[in-house]
């Protein structure tokens, strides 16, 4: 039975939505603010043990001998595992690109600082940590590689010897006649950029409780898991188990932003549980483990970019060369971060041709992971700096320069050179509103006035696309296969008209339970309070990916609406039978099934549900009597990539313009954000408060990436950002008031016209802040090309600019 998912609010069976589009209070919150929501570390199981992991202090070292006897003898220790157990009981991790995985515990050599070397299960975490100190490991240190250009050289130490090279992937994508565009250009501008590693850092680290049932050969993993089904498949592969013998129970988690990772520690805890005879083993990653060895790091990038520009300021071509240091293995799926830019390669612009020269290398650093934005944020940082370089050279205002290159509102749906299709947009309107909100002309006046006083102000105007509702298809260019990402929901109405929605994901912070409640309430004309959400484990849930790729809000809307439509059709048949008419004469409106054109001939949803469940005598013969349906939604019209990686990948394209005013202290290099304004367009805003929350939070993560956050390593690949004293998250003192306005251009393709918006401003903010920094530095004749623009870096640029002879 095909169902049609409403793409407009007007399609809903309500004369006026009461809940959708309103700033409703979140149903998740009362339990969260009282500390009652159960996170994984709050869970205690009978006979549960606690895991601590011994980790390599070397970035690259052969392990010649491990002695665990003393640890095993410590009272309270129930199991100790080493690489031998991993070899015996597990397979190397599944990776992207394929074939770059290792076992969860180092078997022959350690490939990064923090790689598990052994682990203990004991009666408490304290005892487990005591025990790992009693394990002696003989290491033979090997030369480490910490730089991708070194890694690519002949004779470089090999991270995984069997591969014969440290190059994981090298591929050039060419979209159109790029050479011709650059040859014909009036101007060509080129620059190199460096984006240092940053990462997700949710306030809750990863945690899991693993239970290996030795009798039934079942593996149960409870954890703070973002995508339970994918996580389950990973364990299936690691342990070679039939897929129906792995059950993943996801708990509410304290944020993720793509950075929950945790697969290694989970697999280690699984091995420990097996060795401890099936006792559940809890592994809670501590913050130092998270920072050095968790799903914490992403986007270690070296860029070279060129743009071709016509004399009239139209950008005609874009070349981007990216060398990304993925780290020791491909297990974190960090490579996907380099594929997603294909979904928005040319940003909001009409750049007709483009080329992407992509190299992924291995090093003795932590394997990279996903992170909010999944890769485009550094790409847009580069693209937007190039736009400003061109605008400055042509003496065109950066806002005007962008306007000249924007995709026009009448050009949608618009296919970009790298193959993705943008659904809709009103880019000029968004720009105008952002400039108006910021008082752009006045800011420029302030800037000029400040310069006269010797103060250094800079204004950034940047625009970027947030590709929403990801599809796996585009990720195949880095080795992930599949087309379509299913999200399912089972909607059940009980005998008294109360509604339960069963889903395959848990709380992560974006308020999807609230969203589901809003949709159900408007669809069936019930109170939001009459809706309950039941998150299920992977064995019970409908197919589900969960949150990720700015997708779940749209996908779960599609799934819930699909299930509702299916229930409506069934209920119409039942109602028609009771009303002695044809189902085609029955319509649902405002919570009532009514006979068209016959006032008063109607039944409430609860009455129909009650009839279906308690009066079989009144039902049409052969009908399925459950007021329940499951719908699995996936984005329509997706197909595998072509030979140049082109495909419709992300269903929606949200867009934003940010305007930022910064001041740079000429002597200390400190950057202060004085004003932050933005306008964004993510289509229909199903819960405006939630959308704003995503925007605010992602602006601040973007500010962190632009100015504060950095996973630094030394030349020996020793991590330097191992605590929150080094990895600097923005605090309330580091963020300005964020002023926001919105434009709403609904998506013609997505359920209710809503676009993915979860990753949000992360796409635009780093670019915008750096545009502002560079607008200030341009007054000194210099430019920041490395992120974050930490004070010591800015200071150095200013000093070098001051030392340059005048006019040089």
């Amino acid at each position, binding site marked *: 039975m095909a169902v049609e998912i409403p793409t407009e609010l007007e399609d809903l069976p309500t004369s006026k939505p009461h809940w959708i589009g309103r700033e409703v209070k979140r149903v998740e919150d009362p339990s969260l*603010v009282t500390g009652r929501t159960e996170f994984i570390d709050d869970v205690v199981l009978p006979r549960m043990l606690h895991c601590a992991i011994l980790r390599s202090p070397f970035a690259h070292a052969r392990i010649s001998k491990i002695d665990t006897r003393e640890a095993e003898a410590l009272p309270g220790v129930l199991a100790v595992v080493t690489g031998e157990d991993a070899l015996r009981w597990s397979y190397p991790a599944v990776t992207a690109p394929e074939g770059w995985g290792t076992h969860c515990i180092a078997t022959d050599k350690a490939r990064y600082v923090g790689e598990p070397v052994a682990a203990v299960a004991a009666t408490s975490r304290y005892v487990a940590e005591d025990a790992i100190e009693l394990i002696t490991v003989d290491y033979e240190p090997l030369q480490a590689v910490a730089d991708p250009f070194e890694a690519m050289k002949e004779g470089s130490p090999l991270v995984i010897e069997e591969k014969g090279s440290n190059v994981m992937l090298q591929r050039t994508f060419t979209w159109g006649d790029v050479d011709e565009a650059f040859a014909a250009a009036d101007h060509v501008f080129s620059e190199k950029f460096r984006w240092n590693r940053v990462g997700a850092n949710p306030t809750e680290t990863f945690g899991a409780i693993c239970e290996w049932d030795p009798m039934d050969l079942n593996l149960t993993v409870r954890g703070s898991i973002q995508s339970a089904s994918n996580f389950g498949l990973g364990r299936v592969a690691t342990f070679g188990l039939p897929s129906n013998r792995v059950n993943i129970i996801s708990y509410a988690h304290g944020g993720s932003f793509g950075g929950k990772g945790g697969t290694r520690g989970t697999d280690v805890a699984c091995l420990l549980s097996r060795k401890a005879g099936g006792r559940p083993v809890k592994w809670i990653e501590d913050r130092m483990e998270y920072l050095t060895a968790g799903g914490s790091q992403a986007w270690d990038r070296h860029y070279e970019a060129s743009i071709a520009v016509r004399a009239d300021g139209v950008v005609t071509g874009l070349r981007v060369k990216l060398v990304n240091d993925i780290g020791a293995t491909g297990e974190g799926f960090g490579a996907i971060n380099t594929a997603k830019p294909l979904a928005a390669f040319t940003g909001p612009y009409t750049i007709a041709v483009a080329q992407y020269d992509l190299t992924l290398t291995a090093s003795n650093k932590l394997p990279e992971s996903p992170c909010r934005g999944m890769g485009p944020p550094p790409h847009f940082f580069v693209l937007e700096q190039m736009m400003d370089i061109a605008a400055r050279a042509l003496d065109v205002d950066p806002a005007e320069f962008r306007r000249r290159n924007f995709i026009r509102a009448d050009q949608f749906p618009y296919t970009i050179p790298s193959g993705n299709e943008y659904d809709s947009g009103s880019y000029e309107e968004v720009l105008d509103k952002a400039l108006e909100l910021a008082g752009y002309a006045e800011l420029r006046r302030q800037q000029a006035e400040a310069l006269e006083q010797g103060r250094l102000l800079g204004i950034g105007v940047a625009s970027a696309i947030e590709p929403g509702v990801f599809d796996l298809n585009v990720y195949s260019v880095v080795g992930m296969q599949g087309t379509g990402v299913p999200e399912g929901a089972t909607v059940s109405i009980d005998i008294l008209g109360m509604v339960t929605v069963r889903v395959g994901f848990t709380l992560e912070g974006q308020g999807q339970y609230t969203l589901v409640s809003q949709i159900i309430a408007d669809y069936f004309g019930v109170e939001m309070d009459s809706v309950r959400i039941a998150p299920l484990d992977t064995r019970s849930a409908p197919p589900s990916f969960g949150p990720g790729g700015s997708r779940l809000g749209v996908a779960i809307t599609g799934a819930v609406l699909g299930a509702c439509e299916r229930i409506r059709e069934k209920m119409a048949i039942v109602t028609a039978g009771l009303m002695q008419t044809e189902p085609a004469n029955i319509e649902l409106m405002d919570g009532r099934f009514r006979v068209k054109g016959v006032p008063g001939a109607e039944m409430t949803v609860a009455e129909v549900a009650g009839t279906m469940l308690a009066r079989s005598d009144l039902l049409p013969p052969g009908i399925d009597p459950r007021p329940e349906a499951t719908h699995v939604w996936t984005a329509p019209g997706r197909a595998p990539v072509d030979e140049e990686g082109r495909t419709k990948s992300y269903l929606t394209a949200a867009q934003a313009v940010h305007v930022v005013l910064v001041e740079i202290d000429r002597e200390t290099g400190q950057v202060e954000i004085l004003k932050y304004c933005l306008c964004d367009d993510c289509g229909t805003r199903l819960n405006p408060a939630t959308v704003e929350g995503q925007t605010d939070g992602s602006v601040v993560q973007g500010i962190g990436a632009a100015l504060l956050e950095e996973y630094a390593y030394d030349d020996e690949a020793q991590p330097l950002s191992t605590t929150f004293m080094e990895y600097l998250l923005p605090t309330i003192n580091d963020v300005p008031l964020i002023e926001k306005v919105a434009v709403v251009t609904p998506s013609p393709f997505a359920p209710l016209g809503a676009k993915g918006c979860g990753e949000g401003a992360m796409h635009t903010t780093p670019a915008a802040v750096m545009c502002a920094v560079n607008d200030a530095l341009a007054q000194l004749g210099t430019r920041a090309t490395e992120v974050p623009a930490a004070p010591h870096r800015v200071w150095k640029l200013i000093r070098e600019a001051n030392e340059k002879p005048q006019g040089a």
Partner: protein
Amino acid sequence: MTMARQVRMTVNGAACEGLAEPRTTLADFLRGELELTGTHVGCEHGVCGVCTVLLDGRAIRSCLMLAVQADGADVTTVEGLAEPDGKLHPIQEAFVEEHGLQCGYCTPGFLMAICELLESNPSPSDEEIKDVLGGQICRCTGYQSILRSVHSAAAKLGGGRSATGA
């Protein structure tokens, strides 16, 4: 004596006791021994503020204190804020109304820090709020809604009600 010893403290108004080794942190004691898991742990080195509780009315990091040090102290955790019948504390209400949380993991720590703030300063300015909340990290909200929540809570408490409910 490195062995566990009996530790007694008043937690959320009730006399509590439990066993703690000298090395057991107050955070672990509250969560493990007293089963008060509303206090979360975020970094265990004092930076993130997720584990903030009130000790004798003062907001402190429970990861940077030993349980044995809190012997005899008066501790308030997030579990002590709402009424037993589920009625939320005004600061909690404000967080719900102003969307002062997303994942909610850092929220208990924020609430406790704000309790101390509003107890001593019933109508704080933005700057005064930032001075306190600079010690609490939230990765979700961008702090905008938290700032609003504090102002809203201050207004709710304006009737002279004590922030800690005491």
